[in-house]
């Protein structure tokens, strides 16, 4: 036991600046210690234990919003707290030479957390926005959107790359993301999200069903976005060069239910299913589309999940 504690204490050394954004010993140790704490809750009644339940994804669309089946379910299994997934909103632009560094950092964070928890608990969205982003023009495929610009303006962004980590702690520069993710991933959530998505390739439509299970009372908003992976398009690089075959990941394409989503309120123990349908642009590759769904309020993102569109 002493040996174990020693190892943990060695792993948990504070990070030096040069270690930030890399595989972090302290990172691993903090989460490892956290999991050990969870695993050592002997004597707690079974119905009060914290049980990890992996959130799953369900589909939804923008034009029609319909709430169905608000059912109080005393006979169904108790809803317990679960791991809180982490939403990274990465404000970025194709003209921004430093922005690829943020994409690299996101991939590193995703790998670190996946290695540790064996789940894809980091959900990133690249919001191309502001003057450093590009609209399509001539031969240039631009990834900027008016909705992305609306978020950019709303948050008063003055530089890129910059982002929110679960919309907590203010908007932050990339060098702070690893610390914020480390803090965020150690929190539990009272909200379970489960997405079910299907699409009609002919009609270019997605049908999305989002199940929300509330371990405690929830008061906030439900937001759904469409993102796209593997888009080959121009990106200015950190060395000043132009990479015309840069592979853009998790690019924000559109909202499903408006800029700020739908108001959502539920009592503890309640399960809801929300359904949406959403039109999909002809230029988007269906196989590469994802739906991102999250519940947020003034305390930040309470839970987030993601599902591939073409399941």
């Amino acid at each position, binding site marked *: 036991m002493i040996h174990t504690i020693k190892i943990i204490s060695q792993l948990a050394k504070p990070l030096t600046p040069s270690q930030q954004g890399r595989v972090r010993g302290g990172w691993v140790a903090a989460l490892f210690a956290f999991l050990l704490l969870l695993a050592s809750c002997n004597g707690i009644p079974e119905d009060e234990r914290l049980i990890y339940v992996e959130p799953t994804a369900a589909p939804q669309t923008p034009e029609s919003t319909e709430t169905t089946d608000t059912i109080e379910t005393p006979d169904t299994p108790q809803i317990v707290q679960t791991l809180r997934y982490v939403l990274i909103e990465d404000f970025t632009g194709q003209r921004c030479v430093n922005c690829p560094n943020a994409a690299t950092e996101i991939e590193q964070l995703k790998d670190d957390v996946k290695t540790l928890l064996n789940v894809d608990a980091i959900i990133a969205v690249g919001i191309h926005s502001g*003057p450093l982003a590009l609209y399509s023009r001539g031969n240039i495929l631009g990834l900027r959107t008016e909705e992305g610009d609306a978020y950019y303006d709303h948050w008063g962004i003055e*530089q890129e790359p910059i982002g929110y980590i679960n919309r907590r702690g203010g908007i932050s*520069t990339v060098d702070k993301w690893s610390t914020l993710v480390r803090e965020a991933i150690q929190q539990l959530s009272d909200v379970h999200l489960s997405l079910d998505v299907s699409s009609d390739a002919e009609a270019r439509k997605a049908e999305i069903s989002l199940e929300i299970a509330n371990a405690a009372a929830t008061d906030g908003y439900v937001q759904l976005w469409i993102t796209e992976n593997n888009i080959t398009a121009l990106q200015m690089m950190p060395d*000043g060069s132009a990479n015309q075959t840069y592979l853009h990941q998790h690019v924000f394409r559109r909202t499903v239910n408006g800029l700020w989503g739908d108001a959502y309120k539920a009592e503890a123990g309640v399960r809801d299913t929300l359904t949406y349908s959403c039109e999909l642009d002809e230029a988007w590759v269906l196989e590469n589309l994802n739906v991102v769904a999250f519940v947020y309020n003034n305390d930040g993102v309470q839970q987030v999940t993601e599902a591939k569109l073409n399941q």
Partner: protein
Amino acid sequence: MKRVLTTLTLLCTLFVLHAQDCVFQFEGKNLDNGATVTIYAEEDPLFGWLICDTNPSNDPNGLFLLNKTSKELSCSATISIQSNTLSNTIAGDDTQWCMGTDCMPIKTATKSKDFKLPANAKIMTKFETSPTKDGEMLTKLEVRTGGKTYTVNIRFVNGQDHVAELTTAAVHVVEYYTLDGRKVNEQPHGVSLVKLSNGQVRKVIKR
């Protein structure tokens, strides 16, 4: 003996004061503190619009800040647009400044940022704008670190060059072109394009 010591102390003081932790570099050469670099508008090969850029995408030797020490430096930088006739606004159009870990769209005359300059490293100091008319933009960039200030002045020019200003003993005119791309034997009156022996193409005027 006292005189010698005084002289040595004075020399050491001067040496310490003169010691520079950082230096701006342009086109691979160190710049004197407070130097001015002049950059002419060119058509951006990617976007097709006119651009003045300290670090164009097709040129790896633009404007950089070099940390000459073996320690990381905490820097505070300010960019100030002193004057601008390239656009109808003081900050110009599509103006951005990239230094440190981020890029900033510039919409006001002055912007500041803090960043870390890694040991023995040089970082790109990218400043660009898209001229909408002929004129000049004069900008001062100051970086403060370790109690010292390092300054470079950036002069963007669009469409008002004279051939005599562009040519030197090492750089001469290779070809003249009209604005619609027709090659001509000598510089026409009015605005035309000139190709220089250093590979650059400039818009020039002859009155």
